[in-house]
């Protein structure tokens, strides 16, 4: 698999680290519900089709990317940088 990092170009997946489901949102800091945190950590939908994944270009620029990828065809639809520095670089 190859991912196109917006800063570094098309790179082999071995340069990246998978950081999990990009649709999982951490409960707010003041949310102390065990159920909400449990869902955030353990509940995953494992969709069949287009999915959003979070990758870190760890052996490159270390930007986090939200990768839209089809889990059936493995087609990568988009790679978007996230984080405070991603916005400024744009």
């Amino acid at each position, binding site marked *: *698999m*190859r991912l196109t990092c917006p800063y570094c170009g098309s790179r*082999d997946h071995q340069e990246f*680290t998978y*950081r999990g489901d*990009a649709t999982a949102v*951490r*409960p707010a*800091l*003041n*949310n*102390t*519900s*065990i159920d*909400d*945190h*449990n869902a*955030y*950590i353990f509940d995953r939908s494992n969709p069949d089709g287009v999915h959003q994944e*979070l990758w*870190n270009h*760890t052996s490159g620029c*270390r*930007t*986090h990317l939200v990768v839209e990828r089809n889990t059936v*065809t*493995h087609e990568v639809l988009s790679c978007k940088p*996230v*984080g*405070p*520095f*991603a916005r400024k670089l744009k």
Partner: protein
Amino acid sequence: MSGFRLNLRDGVGTAIGDKSIQFVFDGKPYRGREGDSLASALMANGVSIVGRSFKYHRPRGIFSAGSEEPNALVTLHRGARREPNIRATEVELYDGLTARSQNRWPSVNFDVMAINQLAGSAFSAGFYYKTFMGPGRRGHKATQFWWFCEQFIRRAAGLGRGTNLPDPDHYGRMNAYCDILVVGTGAAGLAAARRAAAGGARVIVCEERAVAGGSLTSLPDYIDGEPARDWAAGQRDELSAMDNVTLLTRTTVQSYFDDNTFLAIERVTDHQARPAAATPRQRAWNIRARSAVIATGALERPIVFAGNDRPGVMLADAARRYAVEFGTAPGRAVAVFTNNDTGWLVARDMARAGVIVTDIIDVRTDVPDEIRAISEETRAAVSTGSAIRSVKGARAVSGAVIAEYNEMTGELGETRKTIACDCIAVSGGWSPVFHLTSQQGGKPVWEAELQAFLPGEPTQNWHGAGAMVGAFGLRAALQSGDKAAGAALADAKLRKGRGHVPKVEGDAIDYAPAPVFEINSGGKSFVDLQHDVTAEDVRLAHREGFVSVEHLKRYTTLGMATDQGKTSNVTGLAIMAAASDKAIADTGTTRFRPPYTPVTLGALAGEKYGHLAAERLTPMHDWHVEQDAHMYANGPWLRPESYNLPGETVEQAYIRETRLVREGVGIVDVSTLGKIDVQGPDAAEFLNRIYTNGFAKLPVGKARYGLMLREDGFLFDDGTTWRLAENRYLMTTTTAGAGRVMEHLEYYRDFVWPNLKVALASVSDEWAGIAVAGPKSRAVLKACVKGCDVSDKGLPFMGVRDATIGGIEVKIARLSFSGELAYEVYCGSHHGQSLWDLLFKAGEKHNIVPYGLEALSTLRIEKGHVAGPELNGRTTPHDLALSGMVSSKKNFVGSVLLQRETFSKADRLQLVAVKSLDGQRVSGGSHLVSGSKDNPGRSQGHVTSPCYSPELGCYISLAMLEGGSARHGEKMFFSNPVRNKHGAVEVISHHMIDPTGGRMHG
């Protein structure tokens, strides 16, 4: 089967050279010829049984001539290089090669476990499930019965055994890029490669065998006026001479990944008697291709009949290859059994090479006249509309019983005829090799006309060519190879140019077989030879309700052996389809997974193993090596384990070093600790959210020990973090955790709280770190530090100060891992050695001692400080008596799930220490039990960090014990059945020295 060497002449033994080669099989010396495979050499020596089968221990012989071999698996070499389950058909012979047969005891010709054959019905499909997974009998669970039987079954079933010794070989890796990858060098592959190369593309061509040519090396046809094998050799030479072509032989393309990425394994020296030391044994090629031509050909499949696993039954095309290429007759009297034209041509070609073909048996009545004409040349008796009903011979084929066969109904007639033969060459048609494209998700399509699955629509940039896409026969293969290369050139955005298809003279035959897969006469007939799956097993699975092929495969284990069912999958499906009254097209197929053939783990590890593995060295590395320190690999880091004096063991050295630190002063290299610079207006808030304890109120110039959790409440990492300025912290992490902590912080910074203004930088390599520990450490610093008062008042416990030592700018933090008065001194890493020398010199009059990892560890164990073995991902702060470090005034990563009920249970494993009561060393990995050696009882915990404590004068260990915090004083035993160790211990508090902390605060 009693094979023998034919008279070698032009066209017979084309691969065989003049040199005689000695090799050893099952301890007996044999002679072969240069160019032989192990299989052909064994065959030429008349060896018929080369192994025993997986389940029934039936004798097995050589079945094929290539990587699809299910039977002839041997163990090669001895000692550290011993390698099991190697296909004898792929092993190139060299002087001194040693091989052993497998799965037999005491010998391959007489095997005690062959008694399993008599109990055959007990081992039918689903044997394990039915016997061991059911409700159980007489109050015993079936799984308990399994535990009892497992040891016997494991001994009886299975294949060869590997070695426990480290691999002495090394392996290489190549990253390669090309416009067009051509997989396979048969007619189609060569045609594709020459067009792609002529079009100016960068081409990589991979061939599994030692010599390019595929089937061209054994076919009698002519291409462009020369024998096919000469034409292939010419093409090979031309391609090799081109700068834009890389031709790799002995290279199997194993895997086809996304984005046209391929993994190929090149066997570089496996065929050499004495490889050069610097040459890697194998090389893994990561090939990224713009486009690919897959020309992997087709594998012949057998017809299944009773006794079809007897040594002597083999694939027809393989029999031809042995005769033509290896100059070896597979038997003295060969019968050919076929359902298509291939068998007839094989009979003719073998007869031409000097093999006696006694019979041609064809299930078809309707055989074309020009094919029949061939039998006159072979002088074989012909039986059409007939089939083999059973095989004669207990240990090898001695004959066969032939009966009339009705192709439409599959019924056998009453009239029988017995023929004498010692080899049956069987052809059941051809199965295209679309493993690579199937790995890519391409769904195969059943083509009834060809009686074969074809690869289906491409999901990536590849083009099939030759038999792989059903273009059987030389003419069609050359055409399709040429065409596929044209399409691949277009993919690579190169000019297609004009194609050229060379002229072929030779046999034009129909490769499509009659739809006959099995002759069902009631006897034991094997579909999957390697896993001993019979046709009856497949039907049984169907009767028991397994309708999906995926379930069938797992229930019967059909196609799940090391050959992955290369010669059995299609036949198995056909039998399943017949049993369920469905068409083969509606039965479905399973998807192939990488790799195509078994791969050596070393080839995958490649440069990550052995002398090419990356190493990280601290700035003071050379000094440690000069002192003859015992160096120890700690992840990628090389660290001094101990500085042994002459004659000292590691244990003696670390005990001495530990004692000298506690009595005086020691110096240790801690540069490997992870270091992260955390800056920004929200740095304090960020750390407050990451750590369990507070960092916002930490004053500038102070350090604090912090704990990090994962979101699920388990401990993640620990370390001290120093506040260097209002908005700047220097975080230290464990050595092993440095990388993952950085990723953890980046994740929260980028993805969870992007609104916090924080910048992170890994500075592990920028700083050298040196710890000076022991009651005299202050005196050492006093002697060399400028610009900072190092008295207790000037630099209190946990204080951080800037200073200089011999002109080098340093940061000094008063931290203690050892429990003694101690300091960590950091400087720019390029000054590391100078700083070390200055500190060492300043310590000389206090007899400063360098200490290694073992002493460092012993000091912290005595103090009861936790490290990697306790921070193992399964412990919480409560388990490690660190509840005081968990703030209740704020929320942080893991704070919510740390509240889970289960974490407050009284019987959780809790941190304690144990001390030996009988002078024994507490064996690492031991469990804590209440009982004697013979009857230890259940495990109540385990030891984590053992050592000898000079302070306590006995062996001790940190340990995790159920409800341990309330069990101090209890007498127990450590038990390590693996190392046969058992000893008496007392549970004590993990604070083994100076529990009030007077020493480090002093």
